[in-house]
C-alpha cells in the first residue's frame, strides 16, 4: 500500500550559512494493507520527516514514494490532494482547524469532501465522537477551546471518519488517559482488521506493542552525523 524506494532527504538552509542537513538516506519501506509499522528512534532522528514525506508535506530529495501505486514525488498538487482525500489519512499531534466551525462538522468534513450526503456523514461523526467520549454538549462548539486531550480525540475522530486505505498516525495516544487510550487502540485495531495500512510514531511502548506488527528504527536510514556530505 505504501512503498518507499531509496528515499533520501536533505534540507538546504539558504539563510543559515547555506547549511545542508542530510536527514534520511536510502530509505526503503514496504507496508501492506492491514499492516501496522511503528517508526522508532531518538528525537531528531527523522521519524516525522519520513512521515511528512509520505504525506507530501516535504519533498523527497531523491527516490520515490508510492501510495496505492501513485508516485507522490512526481504527482501534481491536485493529484496529491486527491490521494489525501481518498487514500491517505493523517492524524497529526495537533488539531488545526478553521475557527468557528463546530466539532461535528470538523469530524464530518473528510466525508463531506468526498461527496457523502450530509445526514449520513454527521451520523458517522456523532458515533465516533460518542465512542471517544466527547460530551454531547460540546459537539456544536468549535474545538479550538477544548482541552488538549479532547482536541486530540476530535482529531482522531476526524482521521477515522472516512475509512482510509492508508493512515499516518503521529502520536495518537500521547495526551490521553488510560481509558481513552484503550478506546483509541481498539479503533486503530479495527481499522487494521479492515485492511488499513498504518505507519505511526508511538512513544507509548504499551500502545506500540498492542497495535504494531513491526518496528523500524529510523536510525538505519540516518546518515552518519559526523560524515560530512554535501
Amino acid at each position, binding site marked *: 500500500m505504501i512503498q518507499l524506494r531509496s528515499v533520501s532527504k536533505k*534540507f*538546504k*538552509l*539558504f*539563510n543559515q550559512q547555506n547549511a545542508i542537513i542530510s536527514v534520511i538516506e536510502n530509505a526503503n519501506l514496504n507496508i501492506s494493507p492491514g499492516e501496522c509499522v511503528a517508526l522508532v528512534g531518538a528525537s531528531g532522528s527523522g521519524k516525522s520527516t519520513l512521515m*511528512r514525506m509520505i504525506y*507530501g*508535506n*516535504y*519533498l523527497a530529495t531523491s527516490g520515490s514514494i508510492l501510495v496505492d501505486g501513485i508516485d507522490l514525488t512526481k504527482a501534481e*498538487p*491536485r493529484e*496529491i*490532494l486527491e490521494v489525501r482525500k481518498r487514500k491517505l489519512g493523517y492524524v497529526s499531534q495537533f488539531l488545526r482547524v*478553521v*475557527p*468557528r*466551525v463546530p466539532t461535528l462538522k470538523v469530524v464530518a468534513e473528510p466525508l463531506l*469532501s468526498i461527496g457523502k450526503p450530509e445526514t449520513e456523514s454527521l451520523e458517522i461523526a456523532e458515533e465516533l465522537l460518542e465512542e471517544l467520549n466527547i460530551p454531547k454538549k460540546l459537539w456544536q462548539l468549535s474545538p479550538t477551546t477544548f482541552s488538549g486531550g479532547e482536541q486530540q480525540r476530535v482529531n482522531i475522530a476526524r482521521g477515522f471518519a472516512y475509512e482510509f486505505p492508508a493512515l499516518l498516525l503521529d502520536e495518537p495516544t500521547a495526551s490521553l488517559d488510560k481509558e481513552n487510550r484503550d478506546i483509541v487502540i481498539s479503533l486503530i485495531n479495527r481499522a487494521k482488521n479492515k485492511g488499513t495500512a498504518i505507519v505511526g510514531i508511538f512513544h507509548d511502548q504499551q500502545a506500540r506493542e498492542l497495535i504494531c506488527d513491526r518496528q523500524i528504527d529510523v536510525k538505519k536510514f540516518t546518515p552518519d552525523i559526523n560524515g560530512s556530505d554535501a
Partner: protein
Amino acid sequence: MTPLLKVENLKKNYGTQIGCSGISFNLHPGEVMGIVGESGSGKSTLLNCLAGHLQPDEGSVFYNTKTDGLVDTILMNEPDRRMLGRTDWAFVHQNPRDGLRMSISAGGNVGERLMAVGERHYGHIRENALSWIDQVEISTDRIDDRPSTFSGGMQQRLQIARNLVTGPRLVFMDEPTGGLDVSVQARLLDLLRSLVIKMNLSAIIVTHDLAVVRLLADRLMVMKSGHVIESGLTDQVLDDPQHAYTQLLVSSVLQV
C-alpha cells in the same frame, strides 16, 4: 482533463521595468491557487493580466468557455471579454470601494450584476439579492442602505456577494483580507472557504498573508522580481520551501 485556465509564457513590462515574465500554469476546475510574494514582485500585475484588466506584452491566457472550449482571452474581442467578466469571472478588489458603487444601495449593488446579464424581474432580483446578503452574513434589513454606511468588513462581504451572485466559475481576488482587522479576517476567510467548496469555485488569490493561503489555497506560486521562483502544493511550499527567498518569507512570519 481540460484545465479551466491555461496560461502560457505571459509577460508584461512597464517600459524597461519587468512587471511579470515567463508565467505559465494550468488551473483546473475547483482548484484554488494562491500567489504570494513581496510588494512589487508582480503579483497584482499578473492578476490584472489574467483578468483582462491589463494587456500583456506576450503570451496567452486560454479560458475553457462553456460554449467554445479553450479560447485565448487576450485575442478575444472586447464585448466577449466583458461578457466573460460579468458572467463566468469575478474580481474581488482589495479595496471594496473599487468593486462597489458607493452611492447606490447594497441591494442595488448585488442586483446590478444580475441586470447586466439580462435579469429584469424586480421581484426576482430583490429576492436573489436578499438571499446573497444573508449568505455573506449581512443583516437583511440593511439591504436598502448604501455601502458607504457599512464597516470595512461588511463592504468586503458585500463585494463578494455582488461578485458571486451570477454564479461565476473563476474568481480573481486581490488581497481580499488586506486592511481588515484580524477577527473580521477570520470570519471572511471562513466564509470564502465555505463558498469555494459549496460552489466548486476555482480561484486565484493574490496576497502577502501566508495564513490566508494556508487556509484557502490548494497550491501556491511564489513570485519575486516578476518571476515565479517556486510553486507546488501549499503546505509543501510552506513547510519545506526550496528557494532561498521562500525560506526567508516563511521564516519571517511572526508566531502568535
